[in-house]
């Protein structure tokens, strides 16, 4: 504050009007932001608003082709979603999937990051190859895991058969409604954990050695040091990593569509699958937009809750 006064004072002495200078700077800053504002408005805000409007209309492919506007249909899209008993199970499946994957991703990613951050032999080699799954396109990942899970000649069936001493010969992860979502979650984790670990490794560099050393001298064991020093110091990177994981899995579509198509018996039908089916399988874009709107609102709620939980605290 004091510095600012000095600066402002010095401007005054040079004869430059104080307010005009501030306004100029603000205008300059605003002008620098114009391209970002245009991109955000054109490619994010307008489509989102457009989608919300469509969700209240009878809007189909023929409207796009003929260039005709949709017709207001008295909340029919929403009423249909709630009456066909599909929306709530899809919301439930989405939350189970997101919650499970994000939690497992954080725990396994953190474990991997701690290993990579240690002086373990081969850590550098592992770090260099661990990004491979992340590079593989999601659809290809799905196909790879489908082959692994293949119930007649897949690798997993073979492994289960060996470890069960030949007692289980028909293990089919994706065919069972009770395990199909778990099977997809494993594929999602395989793909996403490397990035999480890499980000967390970079976060571990923020933990000051002196503080750790002081805690060690004071007699804190490794568990206490981890929960009372490492985690608090990594809070900002954990927040970024977790929010990325939530968003990634909340909108997860290609993996699920490739591996199960929402089945068996709709057990893996998330909001992403429901939205796609309504819009592009049923060819009812208005109904698809209604799912997307509900999906977006839930996402907003999740992000707000997430921000409340991870409220910024300064580490001194």
């Amino acid at each position, binding site marked *: 504050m004091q510095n600012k006064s000095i600066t402002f004072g010095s401007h005054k002495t040079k004869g430059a009007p104080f307010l005009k200078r501030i306004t100029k700077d603000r205008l*300059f800053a605003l*002008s*620098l932001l*114009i*391209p970002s504002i*245009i*991109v955000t408005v*054109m490619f994010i805000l307008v489509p989102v608003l457009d989608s919300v409007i469509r969700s209240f209309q009878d809007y*189909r*492919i*023929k409207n*796009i*082709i*003929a260039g005709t506007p949709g017709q207001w249909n008295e909340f029919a899209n929403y009423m*249909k979603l709630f*009456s*066909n*008993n*599909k929306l709530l199970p899809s919301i439930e499946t989405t939350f189970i999937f997101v919650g499970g994957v994000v939690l497992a991703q954080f725990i396994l990613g953190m474990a991997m990051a701690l290993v990579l951050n240690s002086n373990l032999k081969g850590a550098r080699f592992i770090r260099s190859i661990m990004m491979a799954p992340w590079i593989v396109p999601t659809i290809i990942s799905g196909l790879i895991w489908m082959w692994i899970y*293949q*119930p*007649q*000649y897949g690798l997993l069936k073979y492994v289960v058969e060996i470890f069960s001493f030949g007692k289980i*010969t*028909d293990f*089919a992860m*994706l*065919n*069972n*409604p009770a395990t199909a979502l778990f099977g997809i979650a494993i594929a999602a984790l395989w793909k996403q954990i490397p990035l999480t670990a890499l980000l967390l490794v970079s976060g571990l560099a923020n933990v000051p050695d002196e503080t750790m050393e002081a805690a060690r001298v004071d007699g804190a064991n490794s568990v206490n040091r981890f929960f009372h020093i490492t985690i608090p110091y990594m809070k900002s990177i954990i927040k970024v990593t977790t929010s990325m994981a939530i968003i990634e899995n909340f909108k997860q579509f290609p993996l699920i569509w490739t591996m*199960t*198509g*929402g*089945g*068996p*018996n*709709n057990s893996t039908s998330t909001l992403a699958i429901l939205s796609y*089916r*309504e819009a*592009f*399988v*049923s*060819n*009812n874009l208005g*109904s698809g937009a209604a799912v997307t709107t509900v999906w977006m609102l839930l996402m907003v709620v999740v992000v707000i809750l997430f921000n409340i939980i991870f409220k910024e605290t300064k580490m001194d």
Partner: protein
Amino acid sequence: MSKMKKVLSLLLIFALTVSLVGCGGAQKEETKTDSAQTDEAQATNEETSETSDNYEFTEPVTIKFANYAVLEAGYDVFWNNAKKGFEEKYPDITVEFMTAEYGQMLTQVVTWVGGGEKVDLVFGEASWLPTLADAGIILPVTDTFSEDYLSQIYPSMMDAMKVYGIPYGVPMYASPFIMFYNKDLFEQAGLDPNSPPTTVDEMMEMAPKLAALKTADGNQVYPFGMTTASVGVSGSCLTSLVYGFGGSVLNADGQLDIDNAGFTQTFEFLKELDDKGYNPQVSKLKDLRNLFALGQLAMYYDQSWGFNGVRSINPEAANFVASAAPLAGGQGTGESVIQAHTLMMGNNGEAQVEATKLFIEYLLTEDVLVPYLENVAPGYPSMMALSEIQGIKESPVLSGALKSLDTAKSATNIPTINDFNLELTALSQAVTVNDKEVGQSIEEFKKVAEIILSN
């Protein structure tokens, strides 16, 4: 210096903003320029006009042909040769392929047309017809082809082209869901390889013998494969099975019509197959093709061209494959659903439509179609005049099921058919992997299906 930097930054920002705002317009301009250049080039290429029976082309025409098969090995050669042959015959007409992967093609066509791109012809499944017709992308073929020409096509195949009673496509070749079986496995099980089952009961009598077999590497042999995975074509195959039981799924108006014994018996049959471990669970057609190719599946339902998938895995499969008519169950007579690879025409002006019509007629000629069906995609030609082809009558893939063409029916084409089919697969999964009771599952299906159909 600082002022200079600010001015420079502002200039850069201005340039970026202008380019952002103007990029859409620039693209349109570019497209216009491109098309103008193409037109000019075409005009200079050939001044002469081409005359067909009904239409005189005054300038060169380019047919934009959306075709996924061009991307698929084995099919690409045929389509490129067809294009070449047609362009040689009609020098003023050029065929330009627009490609996308099979699973994406329908959405891609909609996106192209929605984005202002012209599509004159689409090669795809008959189940795409309602979507494209409802969107106003394709033309009724009766607007273009004479009644006389269309009467040369099998009526059952033309029926499969109808959306609300109007035919929107020309079938190139078709196949009902037929039954493939492995003669070697039949022999190993002590069954007559030349007497496949004709009814569900006969099949269930044979099944234990086939289920007792193991492959050379000790893998289980499944007696009967029926696709029930969450993909649209599995729903079509299930509809076919319902027909085989004498049941129905949708009436001619596209309303739900499942209160019949055949429908219930179909799902009871699927449940029984699952309980006895006879059917590989939640399989896609390509999974069944894999198992059949590897000798792990004795019988399964597929379209005739599905054998290409089998052959691509095991070229020796031609030695043990045979086809048969679909099984008759309950009060049914083994009827089946016709599936057709279809040509669908866009409406982009008279010249385009006439040129496309010529191309379709060219594709359906004996010289072009028969070698394709004999060597590339096993299927039954849509033109009745081509039915007596020796290569098709003697084909192990096609001959055994030839008679099923006579009883095959078309499924009702409605715009929500793909979603409806997915729900049919969910019903089959409910009674199999979810082990739910058939009656209760059908009631639950009815509620969801009615909402889909009212969409």
